[in-house]
């Protein structure tokens, strides 16, 4: 057997260096941290053949009940539909309902539609602002469970009420409500410091501010008219009645 040629010192040194470098590289690889997970692919990139590990980690397995339910859904989804009369029935139902709706809204019974023909269909919702009138001439407005007398036509107009909003009711219905403070309109003219309350087509002079406030009035209720117009309205008793003769505006 022929002996292998003896390596030269340079070759020996190179071999040793390669050996050391190789071992160091191996040690470094072992000591290194694991590589970060691959981010999920963007929607625009083509999907890989197998989903990346990250997707699998958070996936929740189907419970047996869920799996059965989904299997049932899928089975039902491919079941063929036998023919039915459902579309025709739906068409007939819609057509019938449209005709019925038109009929019940036609004013056939003493100019009342069937939908609103029952005698107490016009039942009232008792609420603040409801206008009521009994057999007498007084008109009232409900407020906080009390009926407030609207003292004049001017007051009625001043507060923005409409006559077609007034409901005629029986007196017994009216009596169930306590009387509240009457609703007046206050009149004032620019050339006079005095303020008057219109009541039964008469103007009643309000003596001073404490009386004005004690009567529950607010400045917003005052309406400005010309002094001539105010003078033409006959005087009523002043407020309070012992206030003396009323001054002319």
């Amino acid at each position: 057997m022929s002996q292998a040629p003896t390596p030269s010192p340079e070759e020996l040194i190179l071999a040793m260096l390669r050996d050391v470098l190789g071992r160091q590289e191996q040690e470094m690889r072992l000591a290194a941290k694991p590589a970060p997970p691959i981010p999920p692919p963007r929607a625009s990139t083509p999907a890989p053949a197998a989903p990346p590990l990250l997707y699998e980690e958070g996936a929740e397995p189907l419970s047996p009940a869920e799996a059965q339910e989904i299997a049932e859904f899928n089975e039902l989804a491919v079941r063929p539909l036998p023919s039915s009369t459902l579309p025709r029935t739906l068409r007939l139902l819609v057509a019938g309902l449209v005709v019925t709706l038109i009929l019940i809204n036609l004013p056939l019974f003493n100019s009342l539609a069937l939908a609103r023909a029952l005698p107490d269909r016009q039942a009232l919702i008792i609420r603040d602002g409801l206008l009521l009138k009994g057999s007498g001439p007084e008109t009232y407005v409900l407020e906080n469970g009390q009926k407030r007398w609207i003292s004049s036509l001017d007051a009625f107009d001043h507060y923005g009420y409409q006559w077609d909003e007034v409901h005629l009711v029986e007196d017994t219905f009216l009596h169930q409500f306590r009387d509240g403070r009457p609703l007046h309109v206050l009149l004032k003219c620019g050339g006079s410091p005095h303020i008057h309350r219109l009541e039964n087509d008469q103007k009643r002079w309000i003596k001073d501010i404490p009386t004005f406030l004690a009567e529950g009035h607010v400045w917003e209720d005052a309406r400005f008219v010309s002094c001539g117009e105010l003078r033409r309205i006959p005087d009523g008793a002043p407020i309070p009645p012992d206030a003396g003769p009323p001054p002319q505006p």
Partner: protein
Amino acid sequence: MDTQTRSIPRPHGLLSELELLLRNRFRFFAEIRDGVELPHKIQAMLLYSAISLALYGAVMGSEHSVWQALASSVKLPLLFLITLVVCLPTLYFFNTILEASLGLSQNFALLLAAITMTAVVLLAFVPVSLFFLITTSQYQFYKLLNVAFFVIAGWIGVRQLDQGMRMLTAGDRRGARMRGRLLRLWILLYAFVGSQLAWTLRPFFGAPGLPFELFRGLGGNFYTNIFASLGELFGFFTVR
């Protein structure tokens, strides 16, 4: 399963879509998942839910006047549609964040399917509502009866939405449980938005004794009004 539904023959037409939803909602959902004729489906559902809701609205408004009937027949479909549009982005982004593979149009179709189901159930209640409209005169009773019909129809619609969502996202297992919980939260949100919008668009019935008004001033809320109506109906107090 992805394209299975495409190969199953069935009649086509707007009414056929509604028929499919009513008779085999699972196939309907599968077709939404597979994207089968999605625009056609959306068109059909919009049309039939609008017709059903308009009819129901007209019955509710007939209690007051013809004008109220006309107004309610427009307002009721609007109520459902606006609620859907307001709540759709929330559902879509919930689903997207939780890695469901549904697109916006699929989410929209699924919600519209729930609304269509609600509308059709309400349509089925129309004859009953008409009967009580003609034979009773108690406003509060009639109002609460209709609220009860809405609750039943809404519950059926929401149940269908839940079922459809589970079917459509069955393949997306990641975040499935969280999606389920968020869907329930979203349904609550949907109910709140719907009831608040209903309160904003009121009146639908028109209170007796009040003139016709297209919209009523804001004030109070839906829940206190229902509570007050219950109180008056059972004689605890009078609504003022």
